[in-house]
């Protein structure tokens, strides 16, 4: 750490790579080699789904962990990107505008960012639990709007027949390409958020989380920072949302209902809001429970299992699995030192 302070002139990226610790490299290699040892089910259903749900969770982690703003609208923002992909691109109902993929993808992400910015403008007027209430209201309002509106969002049915664009002649929905694409984008999101947290903006955001009045007195525009955080957090959410519609092949209001919005919160809290790896851990637990709750009790009782796990975490370990891990590490270090 001390070396960091002196090396101010070196480029950001190499120093960034030099900071990778051994367990991160091992994990990275494992994730790269994972498809070689896993079946298609484990590659796509577990692997890729964990990665893109983690991305949506990551956007909440960025807002809540660094900005202190718990937003329940992140799933709606992801859904916005998914809907825009369906509307501007192609879908099976021939309702799409059929734009080329290199135009559709940025448009979808831009719409999500715009939606998030509006959400940010509305919710930064409030704090703490009010933020949860307002973002939840926005998310539910968006859900009902999509469900009732047939002119743009095709109402209850939504859009089907969505698939990733064919680029470089690769079928990106096939297990291997889909997994590696999700892995690449998740890594981009992970390192992007890590980089952001150490940038001037990220430090200011964390300072605003800790003491908004002092930061305002120091001349920082508290609201502008918060709105910018919403806009930035929309990017991983939008990317996750695109993978979600590619994975499901469809999007309908059910994709973005309250349950889905809460699931993202569950994912982020289960893993822990302290570090960007948290939501990915949370997503892994969530996806595993989702697929194997059938073995624990019954398939229909999945919500009971995940709700119970969530309750246990918020009641006994507010920092999530990451908090448990840190506690364990501290205890081991203490024993080692003694």
């Amino acid at each position, binding site marked *: 750490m001390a070396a960091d302070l002196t090396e101010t002139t070196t480029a950001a990226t190499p120093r960034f790579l030099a900071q990778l610790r051994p367990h991160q490299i091992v994990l990275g290699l494992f994730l790269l080699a994972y498809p070689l040892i896993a079946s298609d089910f484990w590659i796509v259903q577990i692997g890729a789904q964990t990665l893109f749900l983690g991305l949506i969770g990551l956007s909440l982690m960025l807002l809540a962990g660094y900005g202190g703003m718990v937003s329940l609208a992140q799933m709606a923002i992801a859904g916005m990107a998914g809907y825009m992909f369906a509307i501007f691109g192609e879908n099976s109902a021939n309702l799409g505008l059929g734009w080329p993929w290199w135009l559709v993808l940025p448009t979808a992400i831009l719409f999500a960012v715009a939606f998030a910015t509006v959400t940010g403008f509305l919710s930064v*007027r409030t704090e*703490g*639990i009010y933020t949860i*209430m*307002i973002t939840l209201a926005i998310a539910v*309002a968006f859900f009902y*709007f999509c469900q009732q509106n047939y002119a743009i969002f095709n109402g209850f049915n939504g859009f089907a027949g969505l698939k990733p664009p064919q680029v470089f002649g690769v079928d990106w929905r096939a297990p291997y390409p889909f997994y590696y694409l999700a892995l690449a984008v998740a890594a981009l999101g992970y390192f992007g958020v890590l980089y952001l947290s150490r940038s001037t903006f990220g430090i200011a955001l964390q300072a605003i989380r800790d003491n908004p009045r002092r930061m305002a007195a120091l001349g920082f525009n508290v609201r502008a920072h918060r709105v910018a955080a919403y806009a930035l957090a929309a990017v991983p959410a939008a990317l996750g949302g695109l993978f979600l519609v590619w994975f499901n092949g469809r999007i309908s209001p059910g994709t973005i209902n309250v349950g889905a919005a809460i699931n993202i919160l569950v994912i982020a809290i289960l893993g822990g809001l302290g570090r960007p790896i948290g939501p990915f851990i949370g997503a892994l637990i969530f996806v595993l429970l989702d697929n194997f709750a059938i073995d624990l009790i019954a398939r229909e009782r999945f919500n009971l299992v995940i709700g119970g796990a*969530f*309750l246990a975490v*918020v009641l006994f370990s507010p920092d999530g699995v990451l908090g448990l891990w840190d506690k364990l590490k501290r205890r081991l270090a203490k024993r080692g030192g003694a």
Partner: protein
Amino acid sequence: MKLFLLTFLNGLTLAALYFLVASGFSLVFGLMRNVNLAHGSLYLLGAYIGYSVIRWTGSWYLGVAGGFLAIALVGLLLQLLIFRHMEGQDMRQTMVTIGLSIVLADVMLWIWSGNTYQFEAPDILTGTVAMPFVKIYSMYRLVILGTSIAIGIGLWLFLNKTPIGMMIRAGVDDRAMLAATGVNVPLVFAVTFAIGAGLAGFAGVVGGTALSIAPGEDVRYLLASLIVTIVGGMGSIVGAAIGALLIGMAEQFGLAYSPTYGVVYTFLIMVLVLAFRPQGIMGKRA
């Protein structure tokens, strides 16, 4: 003209229902700073319990009483077992109530399955009433409106004219000072929570009779409570009434005149209030 009046009346009765649910939510939040995001689940649980009681006893009135009492008890237990142990940690309380609402929704699905239930009010309360312009209107909906107004006035009198109400209002303004004057604040909290929760249960049975009950209604009423409270202001009965009226009207007029954009009006009201009065129409600045 007929459509307008009919929509107006429907808006009024929906507002009455929203008021019943949201006033409890707003009261609990105003006094204890707990956002009870399981409030919608309490509504649905009350409706289901009321349904079961009606099935067993055959009496609609017992069903209403059962819904109120059972949910008041659940509220009391929530307050004693959970909220009391996390005072001041509002973010954690919020998370816990979200977790509870997930679990409760699934338990209710387990017990009462995913069917839609409807039950009948007693004959005196049903039927139609002759009304000017709209010709006839559902008697039961007018009963809901009347009940809601009566409860609203009763709550207002309770809060403004009785000693306990005075303590609750004092608690809204300054909890520590109230405790310092020797008032048993935990007891006041428990009573308020029980009343607020009980109202949700009551609204569940009454509303379930007018409309129907099915999984998912919990979310609808949670959203209604949230928006009504955001618009009306926290901890204010009058605010909850104004908010409920605005949202109920917006929803019904939206549904009648521009069905695909109905939700937008509700949303616009919330946005306008947040833009010009972030603390809500009747809310006090924290």
